[in-house]
């Protein structure tokens, strides 16, 4: 299959997934036991308010009509109104998007900065002490609750050095940088076990390939072989793994933003859950899922452009 039709097919495949995501998010409200409006507003809310909400959400109409309205809203950028604030969910998210974007970019960067040296160290001398130590990292990392790592970093780095604030987003660029470092480091610690394992495996694979043997036979130093030949070719799968794990990254922003009191979308979702603000929860779940699908599809396409061996099975 040629490149253009591969890209075309991958792009078309996204459409049913996006549609399915909106069905799933739409169905969330129907999983709430009893009358959703009553459950969300609480037992002491006046009957008139409950009925008004039922009517606003059209819960008395047929399911298909409800879904049509929901989908129409999405296409017009209308994801419903917050129950807590006098604002639309879209407006609330727009106010909070900046810290989340900072956090996502910074954690991706830090993850690469941690992954590359550690994986190289392990792959350069397989089954030696350093390699065994590195292979223990994923085993340890999997069981580390992100929120606990965040608290430990606050305890060990923020409270002792006073370089990094224990929470908030800072006021200017430097303030943002200092505030974002520990949250991003937390997420990088959560993700790197996966990326380290993957980069180590791809480097070992590349190390066994013919062109590395010939590079060695040419008399190149081991360091040059590693950096110029092995690392370069092993980077593609690592970036791919990072892209494909964007869901894990995004999911962790929820918890990290909450612990570090970063005013981002993730913390907004947790706060909305605690204040039973359903429309905002629904809107954020939808936006995060769409983001994940778009990023992982883009990663997949980028990989197919970089590596001609990747094709549809």
């Amino acid at each position, binding site marked *: 299959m040629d490149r253009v039709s591969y890209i075309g097919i991958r792009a078309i495949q996204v459409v049913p997934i996006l549609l399915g995501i909106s069905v799933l998010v739409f169905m969330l409200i129907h999983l709430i036991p009893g009358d959703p409006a009553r459950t969300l507003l609480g037992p002491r809310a006046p009957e008139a308010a409950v009925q008004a909400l039922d009517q606003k959400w059209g819960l008395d109409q047929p399911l298909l009509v409800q879904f049509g309205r929901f989908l129409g809203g999405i296409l017009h950028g209308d994801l419903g109104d917050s129950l807590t604030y006098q604002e639309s969910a879209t407006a609330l998210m727009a106010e909070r998007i900046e810290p989340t974007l900072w956090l996502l970019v910074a954690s991706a960067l830090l993850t690469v900065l941690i992954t590359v040296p550690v994986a190289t160290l392990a792959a350069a001398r397989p089954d030696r002490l350093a390699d065994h130590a590195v292979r223990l990292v994923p085993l340890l990392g999997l069981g580390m609750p992100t929120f606990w790592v965040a608290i430990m970093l*606050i305890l060990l780095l923020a409270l002792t050095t006073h370089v990094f604030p224990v929470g908030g987003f800072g006021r200017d660029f430097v303030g943002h940088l200092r505030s974002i470092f520990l949250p991003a480091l937390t997420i990088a610690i959560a993700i790197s076990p996966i990326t380290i394992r993957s980069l180590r495996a791809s480097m070992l694979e590349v190390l066994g390939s013919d062109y590395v043997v010939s590079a060695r036979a040419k008399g190149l130093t081991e360091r040059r072989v590693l950096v110029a030949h092995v690392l370069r070719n092993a980077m593609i799968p690592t970036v791919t793994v990072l892209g494909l794990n964007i869901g894990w990254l995004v999911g962790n922003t929820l918890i990290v933003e909450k612990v570090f009191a970063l005013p981002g979308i993730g913390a907004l979702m947790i706060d909305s859950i605690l204040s039973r603000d359903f429309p905002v929860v629904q809107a954020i779940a939808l936006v995060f899922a769409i983001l994940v699908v778009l990023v992982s599809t883009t990663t997949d396409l980028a990989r197919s452009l970089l590596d001609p061996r990747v094709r549809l099975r």
Partner: protein
Amino acid sequence: MLLAESVETHAPPRKRRAQTRRWFHRRTLVLGLAILGVLVFIAAAAPLLTPYNPTVQELSNALKPPSLAHLLGTDPYGRDVWARLLYAGRIDISVAVLAVLTPFLIGTGLGLLMGYYGGWIDLVVGGLIDLVMAFPFYVLIIALVFVLGAGLQGVFVAVALIGWVSYARIIRGEVLSARDREYVLAARASGFGDARIVLRHVLPNVVTQAVVFAMSDIVVVMVGIVTLGYLGLGVPAPTPDWGSMIFDGQTYITSDWLIATVPGLAVVVTGLALSLIGDGLADVLRT
């Protein structure tokens, strides 16, 4: 010279490497089982290891430093931290193991059907899998627990609704490669029915991968349960849970850092034991 050197230095280590790898994995299995055994024993023997009730508050005794009476001190409500740690282990480990059981069964069943029959069931369930995978784990589980209602029941249902996906994918892939093997063809040629072939011949050969995955899945689910507990959506108070213990201790991190640190270490050690078992099991089953 160079070529000879490369042959000499690179061929034999490969053999040695395979041997050390096997030894490494066997040892990880034993080590993992040993750690988990100790943890389960401590959790099960909790009433013998501490005289305190983990839920009884004694406010006059709050935030006491570690002493002989209170090995790890007391929390902001005057409860013994060591007692809460042990009883929380009972809850969190057993809930994680139980919560993984349902998705394991559902996923394995669906994966068998998808792989063996293919066709529309593969298409429909496959689409559903893609859909669930599109959501970030924490976003989906927190949203589901929210709509289903916080607490253990909500956690069980949410984990089941999300978790089956990985098992179905793994089993489907395994079945696809097993479907055309000789033993399946032989069973078919003998005139056995589909149900008998799938359950008696295919399942025993493909289930090991799912069992290996279940080990790391228990870790992920346990961390998820602890996280939900931290957010106030999991194990309901005052039942001890490592997550809510960390939440309670977080405010006092500058003065009484043990309260928030120790439950996290308990999660890490439990996770490490299970991961070691999974890693070792994978290797033992492969050979």
